[in-house]
């Protein structure tokens, strides 16, 4: 069954954004592709609710290429394309914008293996384990501090508070110094003082 036909099966009462999740769930199942849910939806799973304007997935470039045509047929258009990510724009009001962040196969497998299952709009997805999600955010701050300090830093603080992560615990400090910077760790220590 084609993706567009499957989309018609989305119940009418289902909210519009749900169709993006149905589409990805169908495609990943059909093509044997791994896409891990990150971004605002993963943050919400860990008890921190904040606004988001798109759905973010972690995958490999090779996996993305397997579903790229089907996404295009379903109404998505490439917006911003870079080596490590692609941003897709939903050309119909039905479809939420989607971002795909690319990692290597080993990294994806590691995050998938430690990930947690969630259900959205009746479909199953995986979100990263909390510390892996924090690592992704630390990485973003490290390489785009000017902008990401305003978005990912509050996310990290809120995620730590909501999930009782101790800033002084060895595991967190190591994570912070590995994926973030010493400066970010110092700022976190300050925030939890």
């Amino acid at each position, binding site marked *: 069954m084609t993706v567009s036909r499957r989309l018609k099966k989305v119940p009418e009462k289902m*909210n*519009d*954004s*749900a169709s993006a*999740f149905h589409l990805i769930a169908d495609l990943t199942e059909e093509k044997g592709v791994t896409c891990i849910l990150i971004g*605002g*939806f993963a943050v*919400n*799973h860990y*008890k921190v*609710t904040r*606004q*988001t*304007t*798109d759905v973010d997935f972690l995958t490999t470039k090779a996996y993305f290429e397997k579903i790229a045509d089907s996404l295009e047929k379903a109404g998505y258009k490439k*917006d*911003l394309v*870079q*080596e*490590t*990510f692609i*941003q897709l724009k939903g050309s119909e009001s039905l479809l*939420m914008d989607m*971002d795909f*962040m*690319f*990692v*290597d196969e*080993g*990294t994806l497998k*590691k*995050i998938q293996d430690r990930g947690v299952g*969630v*259900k*959205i*709009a009746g479909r199953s997805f995986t979100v990263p384990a909390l510390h*892996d999600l924090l*690592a*992704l955010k630390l*990485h*973003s701050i490290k*390489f*785009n501090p000017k*902008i*990401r300090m305003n*978005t990912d830093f509050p996310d990290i603080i809120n995620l730590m508070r909501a999930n009782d992560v101790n800033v002084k615990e060895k595991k967190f400090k190591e994570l912070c110094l590995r*994926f973030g910077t010493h400066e970010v760790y110092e700022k976190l220590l300050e925030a939890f003082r």
Partner: protein
Amino acid sequence: MKELNLPIIKVGAPKHKVLSMDDYLKFVEFNLKNTFDEKASAKWKRLSAVNVPFVMR
């Protein structure tokens, strides 16, 4: 101050609500329909991009 007759709130702030994933989807949907600024969002997304590979080994 007494003349102002201000209410004294004695109870603490309510615990923040944790949204289920489906409720969160509705929340996102509502905001996209009612408060979304497409131009500003597109600009923000470009600025916040990180083009350095994330590696976990």
